[in-house]
């Protein structure tokens, strides 16, 4: 009797439609990584990197053009623009990751719950989500920070909560896809409890979605934090926070454009870096 022997080797799949050959060179990932990594280092070590104290005023050197002494010139108070740019990295890089973490944890748990339970639990959560999503996240966060006042805690919570619905929606959609699959039903049929279904069975298989959400929301959180500080809802006035710097100096666009352009370009380079990393990750994960 011929027993069915088995070789523990990956079996040939139908090769008539094999994966595409294009091996993308990871330029985007590398460039993005360098930009983000660079700013993270700056945010951590700026006291050692900045040539001047960002708050130190040089009354005789107001609106100085970029020169050897002041690489990016000075602002209306004679403060060194370059140092202020370096110092401005920290506020935004403190708030954004925390807010993103909050959005991710809450959003993932709620999304998993909605997708796994289905029925009325899902209905209720979706209705609440719909009501909350009437206003785009940015408006909601603006309103609430305006009303609640500015502090790091408020900013983190408000921005984080503003993105919870988006994360929830994504995670819920991915959960629903997995929920239909037989392996989840098999777990149900052997009596696995809800938390086990959510965390042991489904979560490992939606990690791709969660990772993509994490990186995308991080970019959004940086965007939101910069915008909030631009419109005056950031941390205390006078801080070298980039958004606030752009706002404070926009009156001097004509005569001292470097004071506006440096924080603006700093923001741009950071968000683009994050976006490049996020997109590369997404492309890589999709291809697998």
């Amino acid at each position: 009797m011929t027993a069915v022997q088995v070789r523990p080797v990956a079996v040939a799949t139908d090769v008539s439609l094999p994966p595409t050959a294009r091996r993308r060179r990871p330029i985007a990932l590398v460039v993005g990584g360098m930009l983000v990594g660079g700013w993270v280092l700056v945010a951590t070590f700026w006291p050692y990197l900045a040539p001047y104290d960002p708050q130190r005023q040089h009354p005789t050197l107001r609106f100085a053009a970029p020169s050897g002494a002041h690489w990016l010139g000075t602002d209306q108070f004679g403060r060194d623009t370059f140092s202020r740019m370096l110092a401005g990295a920290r506020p935004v890089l403190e708030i954004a990751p925390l807010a993103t973490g909050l959005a991710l944890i809450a959003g993932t748990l709620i999304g998993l719950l909605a997708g796994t339970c289905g029925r009325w639990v899902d209905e209720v959560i979706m209705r609440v989500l719909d009501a909350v999503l009437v206003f785009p996240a940015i408006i909601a966060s603006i309103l609430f920070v305006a009303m609640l006042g500015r502090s790091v805690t408020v900013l983190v919570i408000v921005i984080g909560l503003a993105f919870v619905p988006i994360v929830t929606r994504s995670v819920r959609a991915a959960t629903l896809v997995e929920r239909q699959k037989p392996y989840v039903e098999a777990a149900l049929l052997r009596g696995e409890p809800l938390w086990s279904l959510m965390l042991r069975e489904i979560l490992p298989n939606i990690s791709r979605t969660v990772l993509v959400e994490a990186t995308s929301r991080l970019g959004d959180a940086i965007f939101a934090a910069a915008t909030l500080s631009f419109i005056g809802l950031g941390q205390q006035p006078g801080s070298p926070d980039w958004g606030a710097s752009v706002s404070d100096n926009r009156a001097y666009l004509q005569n001292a454009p470097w004071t506006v352009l440096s924080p603006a370009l700093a923001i741009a380079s950071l968000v683009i870096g994050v976006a490049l990393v996020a997109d590369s990750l997404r492309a890589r994960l999709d291809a697998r």
Partner: protein
Amino acid sequence: MTRLLTRRLVAIPVTLLAVSVLVFLATEVLPGDVARTVLGREASDASVADLRRSLGLDEALPVRYAHWLARFVHGDWGTSYTLKVPVRELVLGRLGNSLLLAAFAFLLLVPIALGLGLLAGLHHDKPTDRVISVVGLALGATPEFVTGVILLVVFAVQLKWFPASAQANPGAGLLVRLDHLVLPAVSLVLLCTGYVARHVRASTVAAVESPYVRAAELRGASRSQVVRRHVLRNSTVPATSALGVQAQFLIGGLVAVELLFNYPGVGALLLQSAIDKDLPTLQAAAVVLGLLYMLIMLLVDVTYRLLDPRLRREVPA
């Protein structure tokens, strides 16, 4: 279709009520006294108490809400605490400005985003696609005030092609007004294109790789025939919801742009009334914007159903 419409027509007022209740509660729960904020720190306690009474702020919360609601649905939206003008004219006027800018930006956005997305999708994985995708991604990540600032420096300050302020002189004609709106509109289009183009690209790629396009090629159709007949329709319709999301953003989310370009829009109004705790204005603006957003969502859903034959009937024959 009728089921969708009736469901929405019920949902919309309910959600609006919920929104207005939320805003009411939020302003109530927060630190800071409205009357004192209006009168300033130096005002005497007596005058603050007087103001509170005249504004009805010492009544119980549900009573205040009921009063506000009754007046609101009759068209009496009250007077702004801080600006001392009727709220309705204020909000609607600002809304009109925002709608003009939004419409201008949207009209530019649609052909550009659809076109770039199609182009990227048709040449996917080739250099054209990479460039469009990366640039779209970068621009989409950059806050609009950042691009706005750069545009201002280059086009308004150095080249002097466009004015730096978005607000035209009162009484100016439409073309002049639009001229002032070019820079803000462009910074918005740069922001929004990436998002929409990415969706269009994805559905274009899906269409190009779909079995029905393959079958058409196997029947001897040329590339341009295939694109014209099969890809165009199937790749642009899914972009509807992406465009809807951007439309919503364009109407109320432009606080930063309005501030940067000194444009009296409804976004800035919303912000200021929230900071000042100018309740009537805040409430009215929130409700009006909420209504607009839900109408846009409804429009998107209806358009989808009209355009995609698969969704037209509830159950296929």
